[in-house]
């Protein structure tokens, strides 16, 4: 039956996705806020570059990451000299998930920030509120439903990342074998029981998350 060791892909996937989402929130929210309200030359180019991972084949992203963090990569080599290896570790899986999840967080947050009537922020300014206070008490609460949608979408995307993860993290049981990777190799090895269990877990979990978010969003309308 399903032993404790078999849970390792699930825990690994959750850990990877949680780290990816945290990184994506910290980097994506300020960038989205900036891009939602500012116009500058080259903005379209920058935006296209930011959202590129969403449309690129995962293997292309995987190859790009190999060039970056591989043994002879741009970052990989200097890091290796310091005794740090990222490639084929759990960190590489988290990195791959972060890159593919980022555009989803960015786009949802930017749409949410843009949809806020600017007059709320202007009114807060005339009332003497500092920019940081305005962001925390007006912008963020009003954009919250859209931001949460971004969190969920990027979490789901991070959880499901397969192609790039396989290329940079491989399939090391207990270290880089996340749910999608484990399913692929279970099927490949003819181990249908493991594959089916993981498929069931992934499906039920994803369904519950989406269900909860939809319910929550319904109650958040002003």
């Amino acid at each position, binding site marked *: 039956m399903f032993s404790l060791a078999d849970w390792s892909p699930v825990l690994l996937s959750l850990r990877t996705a949680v780290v990816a989402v945290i990184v994506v929130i910290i980097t994506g929210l300020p960038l989205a806020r900036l891009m939602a309200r500012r116009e500058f030359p080259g903005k379209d180019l920058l935006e296209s570059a930011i959202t590129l991972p969403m449309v690129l084949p995962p293997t292309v992203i995987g190859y790009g990451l190999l060039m970056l963090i591989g043994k002879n990569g741009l970052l990989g080599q200097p890091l290796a000299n310091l005794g740090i290896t990222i490639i084929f570790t759990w960190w590489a899986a988290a990195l791959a998930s972060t890159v593919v999840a980022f555009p989803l967080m960015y786009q949802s947050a930017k749409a949410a920030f843009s949809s806020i*009537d600017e*007059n*709320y922020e*202007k*009114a*807060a*300014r*005339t*009332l*003497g*509120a*500092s920019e940081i*206070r305005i962001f925390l*008490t*007006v912008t963020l*609460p*009003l954009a919250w439903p859209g931001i949460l949608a971004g969190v969920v979408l990027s979490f789901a995307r991070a959880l499901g990342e397969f192609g790039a993860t396989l290329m940079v993290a491989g399939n090391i049981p207990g270290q880089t074998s996340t749910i999608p990777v484990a399913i692929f190799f279970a099927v490949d090895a003819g181990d249908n029981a493991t594959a089916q269990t993981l498929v069931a877990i992934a499906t039920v979990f994803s369904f519950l998350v989406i269900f909860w978010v939809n319910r929550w969003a319904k109650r958040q309308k*002003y």
Partner: protein
Amino acid sequence: MLEALIQKKLWRFTLNFKLRLENEILVLWGPSGAGKTTILQCLAGLAKPSSGFIKLNKQVFYSSKEKIHLSPQIRNVGYLFQDYALFPHMTVRENVMYGIKSKRLNKPFIDPVELLNSFGAGHLINRYPHQLSGGEKQRVALARALAVQPKLLLLDEPFSALDKATKESLRQEVKKLHRQWQIPFILVTHDEDDVNYLGDRFISLDKGLSSEKMGKVPSLNLLFYNSNS
């Protein structure tokens, strides 16, 4: 006293605006697109003029010569937005308290709750903006703007979304408020009744035809009236 000389390049024309105002009500009247809201936003610091100066009671808000442009946060100018811009996720009380908390006024001279009471809106204190009528929203927005004791109050089309009866009673309230507060009020409108009822003085803004005839980009003509004359 408010003194301003504002030049602002807009999309289709350049706005030229000159103003000297004591503690009076000034009505800015003109069709949409004449730059009325732009003038208010320049005075409040929400927009930056291309050149000129703005001075309120000897404090320089803006000066292109001296390169001064104070942020709206420290200008202490009350602004009533056309759609009121009440924070939808806050109750009436939280809305009215927002400025006092932002400025960390420990001992506000005015109790915002009392201010709401004086507008006949005290019973609305725990409601959210979407539970208010247009007239109620406006009273709350006025209380919110006045709670931080502005030295100048700007009202952008304050009555445009209201029915006739509410409009008339609110006009009277604004006039009463002005007598109590003794600060300059600037009110933007395209309703001639507002001009007749409220204006100590009014300025009419329009895009001049004469400049169009000369084959140039239409510039803004400024007509200055004194309603007493």
